[in-house]
């Protein structure tokens, strides 16, 4: 007898084969969507938002594309999620991870068609992933000891990462820029201290890395535009009307004269505060909050450069760069640490005036100024540069390096095939399927570049029969080339994250045999 209404209205339930089909189809659709953006000759996508203004984004960053999609299929959401985490964790490989997971599922579907239990497939995939990882581990090179070589490694990685992005024309320039910026961080992975300022105008190759620090603010009127040997006080204090903070205090007077008196007292208070600040012996004062006209005037009189309303990040970075401390009380000038820099001056980029701090002590932060024709170009350039910076900063900590251009996949394929031959039982089918899925990445790179992928991959595989080969796809000349000579490298950490999260996601989707979707929550129509 049929049971009516076990679940709430509109809730749906999919079981067994159907559920599996639904998740495979969803996941593969997502993978196919981003597939064409893979590799140096990958194409971009235009994304139009549904919000007001229908803003347009042009990008080939997998995570950005997937983030902006409205997806209903739960399995597809899993893939979007792994791409996002890949972005947060290592910054690059966001497309590869989705393509690999999609391929693993496609292969799994074939196996399920031939009646192999999903759990057996998962077991095979796990063994294969472990084996692939070990294969990569064996072939990594680590040049941490040798700073010269290490730097060239970093440069190679940055070039490889950037060559699939919009910056590829000027990739050498940007690679150098990114490497310099990351090396300044001295091992910290806090990319907050690399500030990226975007200014439309000029061309991409006009972008530059600034040694010092640039603050997107104007200098107050009547104050010096150029200070040498600056002593900077970085502060976070109210420089408007300094309110009395005792609860319930209010001013009540009975004559105009008294108002005037209190006003004077207030002014006096502010004057005192300014004098205390001046007593620190500074010639530059940067405040997070507003500075009213009156104190600004006082600062101008004292010949001090006062910068108001620097946002919180700016203040923290400035404190980091100049080595000063962020102060809020000013009673003990002798114990407050002041920031120092050689030169503060106003500079012009395009039409905008900015404040430039150069010759700073600590130098753990820096600024990259991006120039470009339009805001779309700048946005995409920022995303690409961010990818490169993330990868580099991770590589500084984990300096193991691999060759690129499909080389790691071929190395893994070789080892995994070997494993499949050794393994008895149904699992070996799954392991073989894993190695086929791995080959998809070089195949897609070749396909996207308009090359004959079948021919190339088979030649590549033949090359890799020799265990010590460094062969990979040279997309530019359309042949198999030596990756070592071509200088194409990738970070081990990125490859490992791609491999592990793709397997994990595929496993998670394979384990599902039932999908229950609750009724969508009704929203009040506000229109």
């Amino acid at each position, binding site marked *: *007898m049929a*049971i009516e209404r*076990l*679940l*709430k*209205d509109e809730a749906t*339930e999919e079981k067994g084969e159907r*559920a599996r089909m639904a*998740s495979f189809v969803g996941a593969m659709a997502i993978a196919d969507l981003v597939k064409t953006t893979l590799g140096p000759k990958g194409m971009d996508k235009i994304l139009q938002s549904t919000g007001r203004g229908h803003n347009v984004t042009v990008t080939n960053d997998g995570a950005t594309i997937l983030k902006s999609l409205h997806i209903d299929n739960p*399995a597809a*959401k*899993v893939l979007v999620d792994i791409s996002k*985490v890949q972005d947060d*964790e290592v*910054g690059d490989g966001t497309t590869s991870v989705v393509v690999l997971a999609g391929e693993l599922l496609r292969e799994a579907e074939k196996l399920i068609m031939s009646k192999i*239990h999903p*759990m*057996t497939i998962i077991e095979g995939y*796990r063994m294969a992933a472990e084996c692939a990882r070990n294969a990569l581990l064996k072939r990594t090179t680590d040049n941490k000891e040798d700073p010269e070589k290490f730097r060239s490694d970093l440069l190679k990685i940055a070039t490889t990462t950037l060559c699939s992005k919009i910056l590829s024309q000027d990739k050498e320039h940007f690679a150098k820029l990114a490497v310099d910026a990351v090396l300044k961080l001295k091992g910290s*992975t*806090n990319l*907050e201290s690399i500030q990226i300022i975007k200014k439309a105008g000029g061309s991409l190759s006009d972008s530059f890395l600034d040694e010092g620090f640039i603050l997107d603010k104007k200098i107050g009127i009547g104050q010096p535009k150029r200070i040498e040997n600056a002593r900077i006080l970085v502060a*976070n*204090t*109210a420089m408007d009307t300094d309110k*009395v*903070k*005792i*609860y*319930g205090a*209010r*001013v009540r007077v*009975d004559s105009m004269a*008294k108002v005037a*008196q*209190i006003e004077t*007292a*207030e002014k006096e*208070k502010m004057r005192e505060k300014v004098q205390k600040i001046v007593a620190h012996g500074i010639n530059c004062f940067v405040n997070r909050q507003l500075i009213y006209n009156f104190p600004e005037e006082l600062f101008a009189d004292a010949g001090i450069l006062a910068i108001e309303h620097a946002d919180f990040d700016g203040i*923290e970075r400035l*404190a980091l760069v100049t080595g000063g*401390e*962020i102060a*809020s*009380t000013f009673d003990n000038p002798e*114990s407050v640490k002041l920031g120092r820099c050689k030169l503060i001056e106003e500079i012009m980029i395009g039409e905008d005036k900015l404040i430039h701090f150069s010759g700073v002590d600590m130098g753990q932060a820096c600024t990259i100024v991006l120039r470009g024709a339009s805001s779309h170009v700048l946005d995409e350039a920022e995303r690409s540069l961010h990818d490169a910076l*993330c990868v580099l900063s*991770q590589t500084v900590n984990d300096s193991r390096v691999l060759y690129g251009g499909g080389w790691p996949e071929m190395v893994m394929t070789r080892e995994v095939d070997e494993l499949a031959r050794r393994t008895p039982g149904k699992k070996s089918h799954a392991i073989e399927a894993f190695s086929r899925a791995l080959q998809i990445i070089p195949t897609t790179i070749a396909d996207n570049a308009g090359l004959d992928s079948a021919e190339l991959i088979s030649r590549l595989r033949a090359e890799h029969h020799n265990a010590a080969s460094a062969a990979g796809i040279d997309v530019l000349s359309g042949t198999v080339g030596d990756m070592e000579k071509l200088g194409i490298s990738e970070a081990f950490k990125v490859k490992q994250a791609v491999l*592990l999260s793709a397997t994990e996601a595929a*496993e*998670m989707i394979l*384990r*599902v*045999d*039932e*999908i*229950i*979707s*609750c009724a969508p*929550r009704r929203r009040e129509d506000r229109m």
Partner: protein
Amino acid sequence: MALAFDEYGRPFIILKEQEQKTRLRGLEAQKANIAAGKAIARILRTSLGPKGMDKMLQSPDGDVTITNDGATILEQMDVDNQIAKLMVELSRSQDYEIGDGTTGVVVLAGALLEQAEKLLERGIHPIRVAEGYEMASRIAVEHMEKISQKFEFSITDAEPLVQTCSTTLSSKIVSRRKRDLAAIAVEAVLAVADLERKDVNLDLIKVEGKVGGKLEDTELIHGIIVDKDMSHPQMPKRIEDAKIAILTCPFEPPKPKTKHKVDIDTVEKFQTLRQQEQKYFDEMVQKCKDVGATLVICQWGFDDEANHLLMHRNLPAVRWVGGVELELIAIATGGRIVPRFQELTPEKLGRAGIVREKSFGTTKDRMLYIEQCANSRAVTIFIRGGNKMVIEETKRSIHDALCVARNLIRNNSIVYGGGSAEISCSIAVEAAADRHPGVEQYAIRSFAEALEYVPMALAENSGLQPIDTLTAVKAQQVKEKNPYCGIDCNDVGTNDMREQNVFETLIGKQQQILLATQVVKMILKIDDVITPSDF
């Protein structure tokens, strides 16, 4: 029969608006209820065992959960049917009581209902069926006690505990790292366990998760983690031998509860007020300094001035710490929560060996670790993982593992898993049935049959021939008089569960049988379902 007649023969209506309600009565009602119960059990059936499959659940807001924890699946399923809701409750109570076996209990209840349906069709009265089930469950529970074994472990040799926990974890997605996670869970439980009283307060184990990193980075911290950072970016990131003042008052001038106004009408008043204000800040910081605190943890915010004063006087501080976390910190460090600055005394300070700030990933995420506390009996399990779904699922799995370890500490009797206990009970119940006079005999026999559903589902999920495997194992148990034979789910080659080291806690299994029987009894007793139709 909604129309009745009173003593004078006048008709009156018992059920208002009769025609607008749907109503099921008698056998019809029971069958509908049984069908609903079975439908729920069928959903969970495939999640049973180490090779059980997961379910993907999409919430009303579109968030995706992937899990094979019975209680979680049922809770998120948005069930509308009343009987189905009873099954959800059933799984939840197993979760509260034992924490593990939430799937098994529902599958068992479903099997009992299915058997009951057959009996009802033969014309046996539901109450007799219920009574028969009750007797059978008692037999099964007693038998289980007989085949149970004592489980030996000590604080120095936790290895057996770790193995039990890894059995629990092997059916979850984290099975790749089951060994490490089991070790973490056991260490956590042993750290907070009161071995003399045989009790474990799981509230002292905090499970925190953060997206990013690998599952391998999951760690146990002997202390507390707070998702906060120092209030001033330039305060020290590492404090050793911290003396912690735990405050619930803000670093701001006090606000009296009564309404008042301070009128300023002269310049002198304005100036005194200003000085007073400065004094307030100074005094507050001075008080904390005086009692010897080296770290201030505050539930509220600070004024910018206070913040800088604290920084200036070398007194690191953390602000906006939640109430629950504040309590945990107080427990862990042995400090007292202080509501006023005046009441701050050196005795009320908490102590911790080391307090440090740690940052993660490429984003600006920082967390505060408070470790080596005075009272080491509060620990945190910090989970890292590829994505939010994995972390949520890991949290649930760790919770199950913690519960299992706790149950073993409470009562160290175990029965072997892999369906062996169920099969053994089934044999015992069946033997007892024959000795029972009356209609209940049929019910008892059906109960025995229902017990076999669990091993059957296990075999099916593991890709084995269910009937073949079950009959073979059953024959083996009877022939060898060995109640430890079960289903060889992992294809190891032996089906003696003692060799495979697959076992579960005795109370968990007993609870499953008792709870399932109770719910089934309740469902069988319903003979009239009245639902208001849709409006």
